[in-house]
């Protein structure tokens, strides 16, 4: 039996989306550089010189985010699980907590915790550590509530029939939870959990207001030197370097561990002709593959993709072997491009 594939989106829509994205980025960045270059050009040397000084604060950002996110995951799972229970008082308590965290600004939560800790200092912490602890706890509490909602939705997304089937083979509540409910729920919660991580990473910039010396705070301090634009360009790049790979890696993991009929479905499976060629063909009405075929006849076949000899091809091969994939594994799964014979 063939597995059912979701219908492909109209190709023009897919292409249009990409073209628009590229255009927007090019226009915004190009425009910015153009404007700045007229009056006071961006000091690239300054950026290169000062970038390393921001790596320490950036790693603090990463550390606090990862730490609070992971502890918050434990809290979130527990609270989310409580919210799926039948017993009303427990459920109401969990719901009340989640709603009060979700219903107030993170900045206010941060200030509140900051105020509390400035009156009741826990232990003998230096003020430096106390600030970091305050920020860590605020983020942990905040993300815990949001993750509770994600886990609740994930647990409840598992159909009743699955649970009944688990029970009918003799599994108890926890057995069913471990072998059936959780494995299915996990695949549902991964995209929103990734999103939540990225949101928290960005929310960590708010810790600068209580004086935690993370990336944004370091940037603020550095910008007093006068190079405002350069500093925030650096910070922008650093944040992007932290957030974009995460999204990419998770998307890749999702594809790799995808199970037919569960969780994310592949949007586009087979594309008759690939990327740029399709755009050219769509916009110009010219069948590019015809040129290609003619070129091939004359012995001028242009290299397709990244041949193994090129720099990009080599590094791709290296990356794939490091990641335990067959060097050409993913490429060979792609549908062969349609050749048209002129």
């Amino acid at each position, binding site marked *: 039996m063939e597995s059912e594939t979701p219908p492909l989106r109209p190709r023009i829509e897919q292409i249009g989306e990409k073209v628009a994205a590229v255009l927007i980025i090019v226009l915004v960045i190009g425009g910015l550089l153009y404007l700045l270059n007229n009056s006071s050009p961006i000091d690239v040397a300054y950026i290169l010189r000062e970038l390393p000084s921001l790596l320490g604060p950036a790693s603090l950002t990463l550390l606090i985010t990862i730490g609070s996110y992971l502890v918050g995951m434990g809290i979130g799972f527990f609270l989310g699980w409580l919210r799926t229970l039948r017993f009303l008082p427990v459920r109401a308590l969990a719901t009340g907590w989640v709603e009060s965290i979700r219903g107030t600004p993170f900045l206010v939560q941060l200030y509140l915790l900051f105020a509390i800790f400035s009156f009741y200092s826990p232990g003998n912490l230096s003020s430096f550590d106390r600030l970091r602890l305050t920020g860590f706890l605020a983020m942990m509490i905040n993300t815990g509530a949001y993750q509770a909602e994600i886990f609740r939705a994930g647990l409840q997304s598992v*159909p009743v*029939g699955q649970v009944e*089937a688990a*029970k*009918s*083979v*003799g599994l108890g509540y926890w057995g069913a939870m471990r072998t059936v409910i959780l494995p299915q729920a996990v695949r549902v919660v991964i995209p929103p959990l990734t999103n939540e991580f990225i949101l928290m990473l960005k929310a960590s910039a708010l810790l600068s207001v209580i004086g935690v010396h993370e990336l944004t705070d370091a940037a603020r301090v550095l910008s007093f030197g006068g190079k405002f634009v350069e500093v925030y360009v650096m910070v922008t790049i650093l944040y992007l370097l932290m957030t974009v790979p995460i999204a990419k890696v998770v998307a890749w993991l999702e594809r790799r561990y995808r199970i*037919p*009929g569960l969780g994310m479905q592949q949007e586009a499976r087979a594309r008759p002709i690939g990327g740029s060629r399709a755009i050219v063909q769509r916009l110009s009405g010219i069948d590019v593959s015809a040129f290609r075929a003619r070129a091939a006849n004359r012995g001028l076949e242009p290299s397709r993709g990244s041949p193994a000899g090129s720099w990009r091809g080599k590094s791709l091969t290296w990356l794939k072997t490091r990641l335990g994939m067959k060097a050409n594994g993913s490429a060979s799964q792609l549908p062969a491009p349609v050749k048209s014979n002129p």
Partner: protein
Amino acid sequence: MIRVEGLHKWFGSLHVLKGVSLSVEKGDVLVVVGPSGSGKSTLLRCINLLVTPDKGSVFIEGVKVNAPKIRPEWVRQQVGMVFQQFNLFSHLTALENVTLGLRKVMGLSREQAEKKGKELLERVGLGEKYDSYPAELSGGQQQRVAIARAVAMDPKAVLFDEPTSALDPEYIKEVLDVITQLARDGMTMVVVSHEMGFARNVAKRVVFMDDGRIIEEGTPEEVLVNPRQERTKAFVAKVLE
């Protein structure tokens, strides 16, 4: 083997089962027919305690199972169940579906469980599909895997809750064939089904239920061909036309 006495079930104010009593002998096939909403599914679910009866008793081999000291998990190990919507674990392959209970409940090693699982899949004609996920199988194939999963636990009886009514017509026969074969092999079964041909050929006894009560009970001939009660006559006439 299975005995039900004076079973009552309420869902809120809805009285679903109004004193149902029946018994199934070892190796017998009991087919339950009746209009939808008559309480057939609830009756089955009461037998393996997916639904807790409010009044009355369920006995399996003379043991009263809806008793506080009996673990429902133990009961469900004794009585397998096949669902209308198959309910295969969608994150597991066909083989893993069959072996999950063997490994996690009966404690078999992976090798033992897989050996047994492959034999069972072979028996339902899906030997080569062991590595497929449910979404990659047809309805009929999924239901056959579900039957293998239920039988894998060596249950004393298997309950079938309308096993063919969610299937495309082309797949009904392959599923009924598997159930028939299982009956021939001597499995005790309670089948809720509207397949009259199946009921006539395979059932030892047939029960007609309506409005939470058993209206008529007897051999397939008695209930489905020459029913005595008016309601049974009306139902049979409707189903057969």
